């Protein structure tokens, strides 16, 4: 009887460890948050070119992560990329209307993310608003092309 108890205990620990492992993979490795959706608000921004930005990429302010990219689709009216972002709700009503969004790159070849910087407009962005002032991703080929053509002009 004693032995079967230790077996059961061992198996229980094993299953528990498996579940904890899965939680670790969810929270720590794939960055899921347990927070309810109500704690965020949504902003949109149109970019002429998003480079390699992907859903779930970080949205930062002054280098601090404040949200994630929720979805990216093509705006068929202007033929540019429409990026929806979810930001922490504590920023709701704090960002000025002329806030700019730029797609930045971590390191030379690293992941791309959205960087926000605040302007001076007294009016604030609310849930569902669109950021007007955006800056596209740097595309290496375009940079090189500009560089080469400016060389030719010289």
């Amino acid at each position, binding site marked *: 009887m004693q032995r079967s108890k230790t077996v059961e205990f061992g*198996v229980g620990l094993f299953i528990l460890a498996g579940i904890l492992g899965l939680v670790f*993979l969810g929270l720590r*490795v794939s960055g899921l948050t347990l927070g309810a959706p109500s704690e965020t608000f949504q902003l949109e921004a149109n970019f002429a070119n998003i480079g390699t930005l992907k859903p779930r990429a*970080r949205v930062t302010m002054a280098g601090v992560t404040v949200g994630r990219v929720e979805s990216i689709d093509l705006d068929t009216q202007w033929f540019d990329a429409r990026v929806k972002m979810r930001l922490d709700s504590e920023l709701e009503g704090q960002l000025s209307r002329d806030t700019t969004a730029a797609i930045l790159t971590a*390191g030379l070849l690293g*992941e791309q*993310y959205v960087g926000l910087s605040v302007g001076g407009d007294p009016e604030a962005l609310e849930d569902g608003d669109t950021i007007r002032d955006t800056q596209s991703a740097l595309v290496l080929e375009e940079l090189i092309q500009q560089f080469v053509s400016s060389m030719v002009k010289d």
Partner: protein
Amino acid sequence: MFLRLFSRLVASIVRLGRRGCSVIEALGRASIFVARSVVGVPSGEGLRLWLRQMHFVGVLSLAIVLVSGLFIGMVLALQGYTILIDFGAEQALGQMVSLSLLRELAPVVAALLFAGRAGSALTAEIGLMKATEQLTSMEMIGVDPLRRVVAPRLWAGFVSLPLLTIGFSVVGIWGGYLVGVQWLGVSEGSYWSNMQSSVAFFADVGNGMIKSLVFALVVTWIAVFQGYDLIPTSEGISRATTRTVVYSSLAVLGLDFVLTAVMFGGL
């Protein structure tokens, strides 16, 4: 001369046909076998038997799987770092380690280790029970050995391997962290944040788990069937044990290609 060549040709076609038939027959027997074993999730007395098998199949495989996971994570970080540093992209180390583990290495390597550690033991154990007439005697007592002996083992294998795979991934990622961050000096923040922004829970962790479930089913099925179907002599047991490891390794690697093509290859 021609006639002899012709009759040889016919003979080899006959041999091929006979082999084909016996393979199909074995597959059929294996299917009936698994269908008759897995009627209903174990409950009551079956649950106790299942727990016992979870111990033998799962808990006792934990050590080898975790140690292997740790080393593979560490090696991945070491190798990845030397490649990534050439591109100045060592921040992507976390992404590389976690994606290779979650999508590929954890399910496959854990399944191979599981086949070697637990699969061969299952085959030998059931084979020994067959050789010592325990299965026949169970049948004569009026208990279906498929329900009593085979089913708990099948279920235990099916549940254990995914759990072991999770353990493998976690320990591997931690091993990568030890080597990459603590030793080679990648920044801790970029190791984790890069990982978090590139790993998608359902696409990466989820697909890895699906792979692992498929492997668990196949490996345990092969192991248990080989044990049940072997020739009950000591030579038969040793051959069946070898077959278990060979067949399940091949099945895992082959299925891995198919599953990867379907999940990540855009098929």
